[in-house]
């Protein structure tokens, strides 16, 4: 459905900024595909190229078999796009926005109402309110409704859950599940690792490079890393003590604890606790954990950075 090969994009600056660096990607029809990466990883640039808003500098990309540069007008008829920033008309009401986007694609609200019904019903009580006066979650639902009103074959959602509360985020992913059942191919990007597990497959992207593409559970399971969770009241001191210590591959802060990856996959990590306690952190405890997607991402990141440095 979407095919990207050796795609590169640079922004002119001094020195030139590499937004996308030789990217390859294949997305199947009907797939819910996640693009996971931090801010500035190149997610939005990739979206803009695939939605024909930008021209790549190198490489080739096709959507539904059409080239994003030459056949842009064919692609634009069949895709739905929800940019990262709320881009509807703030001074038009909810229903006026929806009507406008329907006529933009030569269709009517009635024609495809079944598709947006579960989403639109939630904002219908506010249909005469101006879009600018909606809450973040409602704006997001309206934007999704507008992106869906012409029954697109492919849906591009650029960070749809950024700045949205936890409950709305959860609801949103349930809606995407529903859309997947309608046969719509969905490409969604997010900086939140916890949302990755909702996708069929995910690509980890960082600094314009794709680190790994796999189903989320596989990404976590494929890791053979020897990972230990460290807890202590003085978490920052612990981080300083452990960072760069022999036998430790990496230390990653995770909220109120540390995830410590050991270089040797067979070594027992309990020595960390003893070592920290000797250094004065008497409350330090450790336990072995299974790596999550975020761990995999961070580990790959640090190893690629070390690779670059050497």
């Amino acid at each position, binding site marked *: 459905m979407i095919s990207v090969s050796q795609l590169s994009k640079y922004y002119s600056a001094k020195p030139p900024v590499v937004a996308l660096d030789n990217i390859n990607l294949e997305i199947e029809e009907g797939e819910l595909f996640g693009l996971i990466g931090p801010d500035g990883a190149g997610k939005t640039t990739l979206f803009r190229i695939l939605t024909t*808003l930008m021209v790549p500098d190198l490489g080739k990309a096709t959507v539904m078999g059409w080239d994003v540069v030459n056949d842009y007008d064919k692609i634009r008829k069949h*895709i739905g796009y929800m*940019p990262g920033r709320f881009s509807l008309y703030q001074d038009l009401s909810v229903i006026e926005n929806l009507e406008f*986007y329907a006529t*933009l694609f030569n269709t009517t609200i009635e024609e495809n109402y079944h598709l947006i019904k579960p989403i639109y019903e939630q904002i219908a009580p506010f249909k005469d309110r101006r879009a600018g006066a909606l809450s973040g979650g409602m704006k997001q639902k309206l934007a999704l409704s507008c992106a869906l009103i012409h029954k697109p074959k492919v849906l591009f959602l650029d960070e749809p859950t950024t700045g949205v509360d936890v409950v709305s985020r959860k609801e949103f992913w349930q809606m995407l599940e529903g859309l997947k059942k309608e046969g719509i191919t969905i490409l969604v990007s997010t900086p939140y690792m916890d949302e990755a597990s909702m996708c069929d497959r995910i690509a980890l992207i960082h600094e314009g490079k794709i680190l790994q593409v796999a189903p989320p559970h596989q990404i976590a399971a494929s890791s053979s890393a020897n990972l230990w969770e460290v807890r202590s009241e003085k978490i920052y001191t612990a981080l300083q003590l452990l960072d760069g210590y022999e036998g430790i591959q990496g230390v990653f802060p995770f909220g109120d604890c540390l995830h410590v990856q050991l270089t040797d996959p067979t070594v027992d990590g309990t020595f960390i606790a003893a070592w920290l306690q000797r250094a004065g952190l008497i409350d330090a405890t450790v336990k072995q954990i299974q790596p999550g997607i975020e761990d995999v991402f961070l580990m790959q990141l640090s190893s690629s950075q070390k690779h670059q440095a050497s």
Partner: protein
Amino acid sequence: MSTFKSFVKKEVRHILRDRKTLLVLLGMPIVQIILFGFALSNEVKNTVIYVADLAHDEMSASLIQQIDASKYFDVGGVITQTSEADALLRTGKAKVVMVVPTRFSEDLQHQKEVTLQLLTDGTNPNLASTVNTYLSIIVRDFRNRTLGDLKLPMALKVEPRMLYNPQLKGEYTFVPGVIAMVLMIICVLMTSVSIVKEKELGNMELVLVSPTRPHIVILSKAIPYFVLGLILVTVILLMSRFLLHIPIRGNLLLLYGVSALFIITALSLGLVISTITNSQQVAMLISLMGMMLPTIMFGGFMFPIENMPLPMQVISNIIPAKWFYYAINDIMIKGQGFAAVRFDVLILFGFTLLFLFISYKKFNIRLS
């Protein structure tokens, strides 16, 4: 409903919902007309005149009385020596001093040629020439009344002499200038800003990812502002006709036709600006500094182009407002027909085609 209609409808909603901007748009021409009109009518009324009455006879007294009786002049006083006139004008006590020669009644009655001298403060050319005209009319009236039955050849003459500004330029009617200025502001500024606003807020990103063609986006932006421009022309014309009592001499249809053409020229200029910038602030700066200032300076209604050095005169040719001002001045004030303005119309038409071509070529089907 077609996509185009829906675009226009959306645009109209944008305009109507931005109450403050709409108020400024409609208020601006009204305020400008009132300001110009008020300033014009206020100053010519009750102008202070001093009379150097060297004759001091029956007829000169009667003339002074007649001048004082008119609503345009107040006789501030009668002086006996012309040497006092200079001080009066210099201090601003008098706007005009009339010198009545000795043996005024005698010479008049003996059919000799009598000359009245007018010393006018020429610092304000508009006022000075208006004052001269009014005084001449009063004097002619006086002559006809006192000597009318004698059926004499013109025996009494007024000789105006401008002080401080000898090369007095004729009076300009501001109404055509205001029309040109207002249309320029609204059509160029508002279209460019409204398009760039969509780019800035990301609306354009969504509109581009749709099967809609660029010319529909462009046209739909232009239509509401075209109508708004015509409404403003009507407001200005109504006000100048009924508030300032400036007659519209030419063909009204022709007047509207030329105005409509100029609105389209200005709109397409706004489109050009919107295609070369991505921020509202830049669009506003280009529209105001880049378009408004040259329009005021080279438009011909503030500063006469004939007085400018040659390079400036050449530059003024690329200002669309100049051609519009010439055309509308010919139609409205001079009452001329299409034949007189066809050259101006042709040039405006050429500008429009050029601007439309540039904006169509430069309209980006993608982001940046």
